[in-house]
């Protein structure tokens, strides 16, 4: 009976993600498409839970659905301001023979992909055993954090660099349509006062708990960014004194610490990000703390678009 219920949940979730993705991509209304996409991200988070990936579920809910949704909605509002008929753009673009041949090709590709996935052998060993065997030397007991910050730390080093690069790209493109200023209603105003400290606390908890349970720097950084985005939406602005150097220090703290550690480990241990087991736990906490601050600040800055202080000067 239990397996039947579990199977039914799996079928319902898989159909829901495919259906929501289809709805988001086929909807004629752009706003509806974005809302469906956020819903898609939230159902994906449930799928990650079903697949025994709670770390991914947290990241998806906070980053995939939360921050991406905020970015999409902010871009949509600016798009409406820039060209009011932007929303009229219909779902379909290509017509006639081109559309049909593309559909046939995609169907063939989907069948080939499905076939390739279906015929994979199920006796797959993976790297779970290696991770479990070396987890004591990693400094943390959550295997996903051990992989992210220790065993494959170079992935994460590159990842924080990509975030910084995206922000540098965004800033160098220059300011686009200005954000419309709207006074927050009393509900948003009081809610953000209540939620902002709570979100910062949740971020700190996620950061700390990531060492031995689902959580970590990326989830914590995204929750921090959520607090910042909510404060920005309710009219808060970064004080001018903090907009220049302190903001840049916050943005660079994570990547700089990570890079410094990479250089030190290459010099001392001979290998990139080979953390000495005795110090690994503390080093990971230092990297994750600075990375959380930088990820949060970078995501907030990406939401703003232009460097603070410059977005008003259009």
């Amino acid at each position, binding site marked *: 009976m239990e397996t039947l219920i*579990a199977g039914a949940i*799996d079928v319902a979730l898989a159909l829901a*993600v*495919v259906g929501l*993705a289809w709805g988001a*991509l*086929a909807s004629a209304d*752009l706003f509806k*498409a*974005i809302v469906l*996409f956020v819903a898609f991200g939230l159902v*994906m988070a449930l799928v990650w839970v*079903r*697949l025994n*990936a709670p*770390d*991914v579920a947290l*990241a998806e809910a906070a*980053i*995939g659905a939360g921050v991406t949704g905020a*970015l*999409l909605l902010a*871009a949509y509002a600016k*798009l409406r301001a*820039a*060209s009011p008929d*932007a929303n009229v753009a*219909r*779902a379909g*673009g*290509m017509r006639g023979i081109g*559309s049909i041949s*593309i*559909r046939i090709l*995609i169907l063939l*590709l*989907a069948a080939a992909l*499905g076939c*390739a*996935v279906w015929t994979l052998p*199920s006796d*797959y060993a*993976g790297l*779970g055993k290696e991770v479990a065997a070396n987890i004591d030397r990693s400094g943390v007991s959550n295997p*996903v954090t*051990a*992989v*992210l910050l220790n065993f*494959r730390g170079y*992935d994460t080093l590159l*990842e924080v660099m*990509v*975030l910084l690069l995206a*922000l540098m790209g*965004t800033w160098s*493109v220059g300011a*686009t*349509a200005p954000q419309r200023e709207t006074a927050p209603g009393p509900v948003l105003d009081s809610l953000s006062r209540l939620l902002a400290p709570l979100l910062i606390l949740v971020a700190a908890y996620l950061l700390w708990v990531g060492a031995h349970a689902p959580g*970590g720097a*990326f989830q914590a950084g995204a929750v921090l960014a959520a607090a910042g985005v909510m404060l920005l939406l309710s009219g808060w602005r970064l004080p001018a004194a903090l907009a220049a150097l302190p903001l840049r220090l916050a943005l660079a703290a994570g990547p700089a610490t990570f890079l410094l550690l990479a250089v030190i480990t290459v010099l001392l241990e001979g290998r990139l990000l080979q953390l000495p087991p005795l110090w690994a736990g503390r080093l990971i906490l230092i990297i994750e703390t600075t990375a959380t601050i930088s990820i949060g600040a970078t995501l907030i800055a990406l939401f703003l678009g232009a460097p603070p202080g410059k977005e008003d000067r259009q």
Partner: protein
Amino acid sequence: MSAAFFYALAGAGLFSIGLHALLAHRHLLRKILAINVMGSGVFLVLAAMATRNGIAIPDPVPHAMIITGIVVAVAATALALVLMLKLTAETGQAVLPGRKKEDNP
């Protein structure tokens, strides 16, 4: 049929739906949504395949790669959205230039 393979098929389906939307739609915001759906499809295949041998504790390496992928996807999305807004400010439309006027919906 195990749930892992079922989810992996859904992932392949998401990738295909996203690829179709990426090619068929003209509006850049839709193309950005489509790329995100394609990415989610890839992540779903990765995570499903990490659990396919049926043991209780799945392989953490694909999970770490998916978290990395989600963060890279949001960074790329943010940059793509800014480029789209800049293009809209320059041309008045959120579609790629180089097409005939009557094609515009």
